[in-house]
């Protein structure tokens, strides 16, 4: 039982980390609010489903086009909405959240509801690890999550684009004087964040069905992880995912599954009391705290 919990806890943590990463890239690292994140996640899922089932394209092509479309949606969100309220974070949040709502509820309205909406797994079958059966898809998710994390860490610390993302969040004016086009990189970060959402959707959704509620779940979970780990800190997201992920899995296996939500609530409450801007946040003393 313990070993199984450890294994599934790791998978759960990977899922949370994967969900939070795209959101963190845009909001935490680049300082651009994208509360339509959950909607884009669901959008990518449904789009892939449409390509696979209604139009009948092969898997890899569908996935590829979906990711591309998600990036385009991200860019559009920036060019149509964010650019007009750039810098007014709360307006960005409200506008993107409103848009996210519109997208998700439209899907619900057009009857994209039901058990037939599922995505196929990447690899079928399962493997036994130390007596515990884990399906390949879940392992695949863990693999992608780990890979993504490494990639993102290197990306934001060592590539020109990644560094530009961090620059526009930390000190936009200076970035501008250094020739970094804030709007271009803002749009790019939104595109990348959306692409990450799409990737997450494609590997995670096969575990269940594509449901509109999932979009809200994704946003809540991403927010919870970011609140606990600290916005902007890739390390923080990791630690927070592990903490919350394992706490959830232990609760589910040793107590009752429906207490799982309490875990996230308690985690947020504890963090708020102890270190409100997140465990690993880059706390700028004069800026964040009163």
């Amino acid at each position, binding site marked *: 039982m313990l070993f199984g919990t450890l294994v599934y806890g790791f998978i759960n943590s990977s899922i949370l980390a994967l969900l939070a990463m795209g959101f963190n890239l845009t909001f935490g690292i680049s300082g651009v*609010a994208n509360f339509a994140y959950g909607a884009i996640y669901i959008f990518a899922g449904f789009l892939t489903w449409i390509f696979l089932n209604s139009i009948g394209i092969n898997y890899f092509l569908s996935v590829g086009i979906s990711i591309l479309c998600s990036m385009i949606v991200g860019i559009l969100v920036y060019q*149509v*909405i964010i650019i*007009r*309220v750039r810098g007014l*974070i*709360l*307006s960005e*949040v*409200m*506008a993107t*959240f*409103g*848009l*996210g*709502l*519109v997208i998700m*509820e*439209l899907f*619900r*309205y057009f009857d994209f509801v039901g058990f037939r909406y599922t995505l196929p797994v990447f690899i079928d079958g399962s493997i036994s690890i130390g007596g515990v059966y884990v399906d390949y898809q879940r392992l695949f998710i863990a693999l992608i999550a780990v890979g993504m994390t490494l990639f993102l860490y290197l990306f934001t610390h060592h590539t020109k684009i990644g560094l530009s993302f961090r620059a526009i969040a930390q000190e936009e004016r200076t970035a501008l004087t250094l020739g970094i086009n804030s709007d271009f990189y803002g749009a790019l970060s939104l595109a990348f964040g959306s692409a990450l959402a799409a990737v997450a959707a494609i590997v995670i959704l096969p575990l269940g069905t594509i449901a509109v509620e999932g979009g*809200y779940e994704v946003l*809540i979970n991403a*927010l*919870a992880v*970011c*609140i606990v780990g600290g916005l902007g800190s890739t390390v923080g997201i990791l630690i927070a995912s592990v903490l919350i992920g394992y706490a959830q899995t232990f609760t589910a296996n040793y107590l009752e599954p*429906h*207490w*799982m*939500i*309490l875990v*996230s*609530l308690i985690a*947020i*409450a504890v963090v*708020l*009391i102890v270190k*409100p*801007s997140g465990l690993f946040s880059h706390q700028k003393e004069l*800026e*964040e*705290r*009163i």
Partner: protein
Amino acid sequence: MMKKRKERIDRGIKARSEDIFALSSLREMIYLLIPRAIPVLGLLVVSPFLSAYWQEVFISTAIYALLAISWDLLASCGLVSLGQSLFYGIGSYIAGALNYYLGWSPLFTIPVATIGGGVLCTIFLLPVLRLRGIYFAMVTLVLPLMFLRLVEATRILGGTEGLTGLDSFPTQLTALYVIQLALLAALFGFRRIMGSDYGLIIMGINDNDRSVMNAGINIFWYKTQVLFLASAVGSFAGAFGTHMDMFAGMPGFALDYSIMPVAAAVVGGMGTFAGPMVGSFILVPLSEILRALGALRIVFYGLFLVVFIVALPEGLFHYIQRKYHQFERWVEVEK
């Protein structure tokens, strides 16, 4: 061809300032009275004559308007709430539980739920008050959604079915007047508060909180007070709604109650309290008329929210106010 520019000139009535002024003529008194008389008269006098169906819509609108006004108070202090449904849900459950388990009448459940809800919500959000802007918005967004799942999972307080068969008001008319008086009290009360020196502190906190700290004022304490006021009003709305529907349950934490006040404030104009009220009185009846579209209600609010934030950020009320106080004309650009 001469270039033209728009020139704005204040109207020739002196009683335009927000501060103290002397009313020296009937004309001035009427100028000031009319915008204030319209809501008061419109609501109190017209409402009893509406049909039963439209009275219900009216009451629903008033409930939403209370949430929107509560939102505006928080926003005036720099606290943007994306979860007004937290206040509604808590107020709703307190009143519902008191009525269901203890048999208290609405006369008692509503006041207790108002104060109790205010206290509880303030306690929940206290830790985030010490942080800047975005954290408050994030936490208020997440909390009601979590409470929703908490109730569903632990099945307390009626679980997914909620508490049904609660007491209602003696007559429809009673309900109608109670909610209207509450609405007007909140509207004019908050406007009065914000117009006083206390309101100046609140606006200062929104504008530049470190400067207010530097003026020897404990901003944490003032934020707490504002939070309590706003959450009490929101809880009142929830308690009232519970007795209107004779039901308290998970829908009390629904996204509807969170999004609509924000949309109303954005459409109507933030910071004026009258603006969100105007916004509510436009959006809610409109969404009723479009009821045939069913689930599209949220889409509707969302769309309004997005369009107005981007296109008319100042909101309708500011726009109308500007037109009322000034007139514009095209003037040739002088060399």
